[in-house]
């Protein structure tokens, strides 16, 4: 049934960028349509953040049970069902999925289920319908990047890994990035023998090398084998088991495992977008190029989220989408994305906001470092989470907090305080005046800030 409908804005993609942009525009009184080819909520909700964190939450719980069985508090650790974890996870995802649907419907946003084809900056065809609009927002997101390695069809990607029905006995993770390390953490806690192969000489070079080094040691202590400077040559199969052949230290080595997880990264999803016809450019990685107002080369054709590269974080997508809507309908406004918190949900987790020491040094910024260990904090001791440290980078002279890096329990929550401080350009003196509740892990952050001035009272002299 062919339908032609006119809208103020058509959004391609119902993921974080798409649905937040839609709500933002609807709230401004605009008539909005969202086209979604798969499931509302996009990668994040369905095959990314949410399901991963569900698994990691259960993995965390299992770690706590193990620790308390070893110290004798529990006599018997008991049994758990991986199948039930996956079932519960699906229920949570389905619930959130329905939630996004309700949210959009409640704002009167039209949702078109199907693969959208953008034929011009003002026309979209989807599922037999033709939609026209003055403005189109591209939020098609990203997909898994599968490198051209022989035997790549034997590997699974993160989406598959999140949907495994049977817990694998062993798994090789190709790629030691955020996704690879998070899934490695989860599966290791469930009982899978995990090996991570990272091509670069160190893990996560964009983050603080000291704390990432600590993370690596702790992951290794938990049984995850991490091999850096490992270049995967091929993947093969014998009978029921698979193997990965890689080169490391000038030697060729082989690992056998039940599953091979390919987690080397994601790339922009451009299916249905004829970039040439639309007159939009992509960079070398395939990301759509936009200006500072998120407009593409074609007028009134905007793009936000993973499809433009950038932070590749859901909360960045939210911010970008809101900014694009403002730019479209209110007026051109510059939004800063530099105070961006980013989290790695390993066990224990890491979170950071601001630049790393390496990045500051590169820029020639003079700074001092304040640090405080979780092991000196009462709450950490009470909760049995003494592995961790917080670093605070303070600009010499102005005493402004430039960056905070947290490795330890609840890093992803503590980072919100740090982000607040950074965005408000707080100095160490201002932070000292703020009272932090005791006992709490937040005190670790507070003490690290004070330490930058040599002012921590909880550190031994």
């Amino acid at each position, binding site marked *: 049934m062919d339908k032609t409908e006119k809208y103020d804005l058509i959004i391609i993609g119902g993921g974080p960028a798409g649905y937040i942009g839609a709500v933002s525009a609807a709230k401004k009184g605009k008539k909005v349509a969202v086209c979604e080819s798969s499931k509302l909520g996009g990668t994040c909700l369905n095959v990314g953040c949410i399901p991963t964190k569900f698994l990691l939450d259960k993995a965390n719980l*299992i*770690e706590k*049970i*193990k*620790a308390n*069985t*070893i*110290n*004798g508090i529990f*006599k*018997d*650790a*008991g*049994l*758990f*069902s*991986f*199948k*039930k974890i996956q079932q519960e996870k699906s229920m949570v995802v389905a619930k959130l999925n329905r939630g996004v649907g309700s949210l959009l419907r409640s704002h009167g946003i039209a949702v078109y289920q199907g693969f959208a084809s953008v034929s011009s900056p003002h026309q979209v065809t989807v599922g037999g319908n033709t939609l026209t609009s003055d403005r189109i927002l591209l939020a098609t997101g990203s997909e898994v990047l599968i490198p051209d390695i022989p035997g790549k069809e034997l590997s699974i990607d993160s989406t598959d890994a999140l949907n495994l029905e049977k*817990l694998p006995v062993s798994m090789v993770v190709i790629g030691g990035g955020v996704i690879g390390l998070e899934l490695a953490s989860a599966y290791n806690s469930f*009982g899978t*023998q995990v090996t991570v192969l990272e091509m670069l000489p160190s893990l996560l070079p964009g983050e603080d090398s000291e704390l990432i080094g600590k993370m690596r040691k702790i992951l290794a*202590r*938990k*049984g995850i084998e991490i091999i850096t400077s490992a270049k995967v040559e091929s993947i093969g199969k014998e009978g029921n088991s698979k193997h990965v052949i890689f080169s490391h230290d000038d030697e060729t080595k082989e690992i056998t495992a039940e599953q091979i997880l390919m987690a080397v990264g994601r790339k922009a999803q451009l299916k249905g977008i004829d970039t040439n016809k639309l007159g939009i450019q992509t960079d070398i990685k395939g990301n759509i190029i936009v200006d500072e107002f998120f407009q593409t080369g074609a007028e009134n054709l905007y793009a936000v989220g993973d499809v433009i590269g950038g932070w590749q974080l859901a909360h960045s997508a939210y911010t970008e989408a809101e900014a694009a809507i403002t730019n479209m309908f209110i007026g051109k406004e510059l939004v800063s994305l530099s105070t961006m918190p980013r989290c790695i949900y390993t066990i224990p987790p890491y979170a950071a906001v601001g630049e790393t020491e390496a990045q500051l040094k590169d820029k020639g910024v003079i700074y001092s470092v304040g640090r405080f260990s979780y092991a000196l904090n009462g709450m950490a001791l009470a909760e*049995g989470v003494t*592995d961790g440290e917080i670093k605070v980078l303070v600009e010499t002279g102005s005493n402004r907090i430039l960056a905070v890096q947290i490795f330890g329990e609840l890093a992803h929550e503590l980072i919100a305080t740090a982000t607040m401080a950074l965005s408000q350009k707080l100095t160490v003196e201002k932070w000292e005046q703020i009272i932090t509740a005791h006992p709490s892990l937040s005190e670790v952050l507070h003490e690290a800030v004070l330490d930058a001035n040599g002012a921590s009272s909880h550190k031994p002299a």
Partner: protein
Amino acid sequence: MLHKIAMPAAGKNTDELLVLSWNKEEGDLVERGDVLIEIETDKATMDVESFAKGILLKKLVEEGETATTGDIIAYIGEEGDLEQLEAETEVSSDEDDEYIPIMPVERTMVPIEPRQNQEDISLSYKASPAAKKLARDLQIDISQIASTNGISLIKYDDVATYSDHIAARDNDFELLPLSSMRKVIADRMLASVTTIPSFTAEVEVHMETLMTVRDNLNLESEVKISFNDLLSVCVTKAIEKYPLINSSYTDDGIKKFNSTHVGFAVSVENGLVVPVIKNIEKKRLREIALENRENISRARDGKLSSDKMEGGTVTISNLGMFPIQRFDAIINPPESCILALGTISKKPVWDEAANSFVPVSIMSMTGTFDHRVIDGAYGAGFLKALKDLIENPFRLLL
């Protein structure tokens, strides 16, 4: 069509039944009503018949094993029925694999805060802390238990059982398994002794008269009358004057029974059973004797049905066939009195008239009473009344 044969409910005090022997082999044709197995309950043995017709496809318990009421013990059906069942159960047995241990068993897992010794972590079995402690105390190598039994988590009981077995192997003793009957006797006797405050009183009964009565009766009766039969009648009569003997203590009150149901302790191979004859006061001596003989015969064959062993209100235990002068029996709960009879032997008794000791056939009889119901004087009074009836049986006619 596949039929499942289940273990029936047969025990008086237990649902665990011992398979004594199989009457059929796998592959045999079974008709409806054919005996499949002979089982032992806590009191007797009985046959289990097949309700189904077909081929005995599979036995799920072996001779010497126990099964609980309701457990499936055999499959009867047609050829091929079993394969179909196995195909179906393969699917559902996945459910057993669904749950795995939180603590990894095989990998050398390094704990966050190492608190155990290295040796404890690297072994390939798991044992609970209590099991490990017991093993240390008993100086047992716990890894032997794992390899012997192939169990994945060794618990305290596993260590205790293992310890018993290895002690038995060392030839200090032989460990005999407990039969259902033995377990029940053990439990009930312990319960009686620990919960009933009892006392015992003895009387010496002159048996000459009753012996003559019995001999005369047996000249005429088709059924052999025994002392037990006569005594049960005497006891029932004495209870008329002392009804609390025929009662049971409960926290809500003393249950005074309306009829007398006398239990007779009968020795059987490897144990003891107590068949009950109900409503003695309503039965003629001949009936009592007949019932008693039948009960004893069945009991000795292990074929006494459970309803014949229930409902007793007072028990008589007679060891007179042995040279036992006297003994104190243990009350059979929930009764309040048990009478224990010793052997009849000639003893010297002072005779006033003859001014000398005369030989009299004497039997010692003790009564053990529940003091919550029966006080000293009452019990003594009952025994006096009973002695009086035994020595003057004409009084039974009153």
